[in-house]
């Protein structure tokens, strides 16, 4: 405890954005739809390939994306397909980040990545709760923050900011008068 640790040479440990892209493209030739490296490195993939590509990214020794920072949904209500599922992944050893996006339509489902990163379990439940995107082969796909019998998915753009959904839900639950 408390001993001086050597300073880590960050630049040596990191792969450059170009190297990451090349390593992924070498394995999957026509799976990546687009690449954006203006601010954070982002790749867009087809939703059918998401599990396959995540498993590769997590297991390939030179990439080593062993840490799932986050999964979130985005609703582009004017676009077809409507939703994006965004994965933020990180490598604890190599210290590099990558953002993966996959588009999913309103009544489509996407493969769960819970088998790759255990942390995906709750993240995917949250995306399901907030957007209604269904994850295939998820071990326990229930709502997480809202009650199980809630109607609607609040982070969709067509869900109003101020509603009486909450009051109606509560009214159904409350037993105000029981006749004797």
């Amino acid at each position, binding site marked *: *405890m*408390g*001993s*001086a*640790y050597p300073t*880590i040479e*960050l630049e040596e440990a990191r792969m450059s954005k170009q190297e990451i892209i090349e390593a992924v493209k070498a394995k999957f030739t026509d799976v990546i739809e687009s690449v954006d490296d*203006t*601010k*954070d490195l*982002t790749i867009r993939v087809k939703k059918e390939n998401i599990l396959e590509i995540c498993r590769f990214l997590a297991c390939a020794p030179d990439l080593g994306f*062993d*840490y*799932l*920072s*986050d999964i*979130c949904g*985005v*609703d582009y209500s004017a676009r077809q397909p409507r939703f994006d599922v*965004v994965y*933020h992944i990180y490598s*604890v050893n190599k*210290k590099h*980040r990558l*953002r993966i996006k996959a588009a999913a339509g309103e009544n489509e489902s996407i493969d769960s990545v819970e088998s790759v*990163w*255990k*942390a995906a*379990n*709750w993240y995917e439940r949250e995306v399901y709760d*907030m957007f209604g995107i269904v994850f295939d082969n998820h071990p326990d796909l229930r709502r*997480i*923050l*809202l*009650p199980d019998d809630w109607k609607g998915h*609040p*982070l969709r753009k067509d*869900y109003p*900011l101020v509603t009486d959904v909450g009051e109606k839900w509560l009214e159904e639950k409350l037993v105000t008068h029981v006749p004797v």
Partner: protein
Amino acid sequence: MSEVQELIVNMGPQHPSTHGVLRLIVHLDGEVVTRVIPDLGYLHRGLEKLAENKTYAQFLPVTDRLDYLAAISNNLAYCLAVEKLLGLDVPKRASYIRVILAELTRIVSHLVWLATHALDLGAFTPFLYCFRERELLLDIFEMYCGSRLTTTAFRIGGVPKDIDSQIKQKIEEFVKIFPSKMNEYEALLTNNKIWLERTMNVGIISAEDAINYSLSGPCVRGSGVEWDIRRAEPYCVYNELDFDIPTGRGVGDTYDRYLVRLEEMRQSNRMIKQAFEKMPEGNLMADDPRVVPPTRDNVQTRIESLIHHFHIMAEGFNPPVGEVYQAIEAPKGELGFYIISDGSPKPYRMKIRVPSFANLQAIEKMCENGMMLADVVAIIGTLDIVLGEIDR
């Protein structure tokens, strides 16, 4: 009489040891836990939906309500994310002030953790000791920004106020006495037989599992993973400060995480001392009139500045179209803001990646291997969760 019956105990959401409104459904075989099912959402306020309906500056005070024990860290993460989106350079002095306050917040957060964790496990004195020192720090926050918990201490583009000589003196006094106070806590707990019995080999999680479950902060370092975002992806001026990353003794149990957090408080203390030595003179806000409002003197004397101020406050500013993810090492782990901008003054989507959410998920894994019901209380304490940021 040989029939085995599983007992289901409902723990929370009003149970004091669940640190807020966490509900656990605990399956028991005698006193041994067979399964733990967390039930969340009792504090869900829809902050991410709210973010889509507020301008960037308006959302800043809302971030205080995420991890309300470390509001300054939330402010820092949010400001850094918006500044990354805007491509804004923050003056060096402002960055140093941010680091000093963020490290003080880390100490505050860890003091509350130590106080409540020890209280849950039956030690009352550390609670009094920790809150005594926490009070000093909250007074410093109050001197700096006028409030103690919901601070809104920073602004997009810098800090609103300098650390003047009075505040500096208070902080320096604290930094001077704090190591001896740390020794007092350690004298009560570190070699205390009851404490060792209650924390050693409780809630063990291996390094591989910790990473696979996306644990971050002291929880992952307690399993021996030397990963700290302040070192791995330095933000502000952490690359100019010298600090060690404690990793415990390599078991990954509750006692390891206790050691890690104690050492982190010492390292924070060290960093604050260095930051005061290295802090340069300079501006407090970035030089960008699109985002930074004019100074108060100008607003009160010049009509152009008044109009300028009104535009920024009433309409907000228009960041470029794009998306950023910015993570910081908050007291509890990786706190990240993912912002998608469509060029309008309000974010199109904002996702807040909070450390407690992922950390709590590992409770099921930690409660395996014959943990008792009383150990569940220790494990909740060691995860250091805050429901305000889990439920958002």
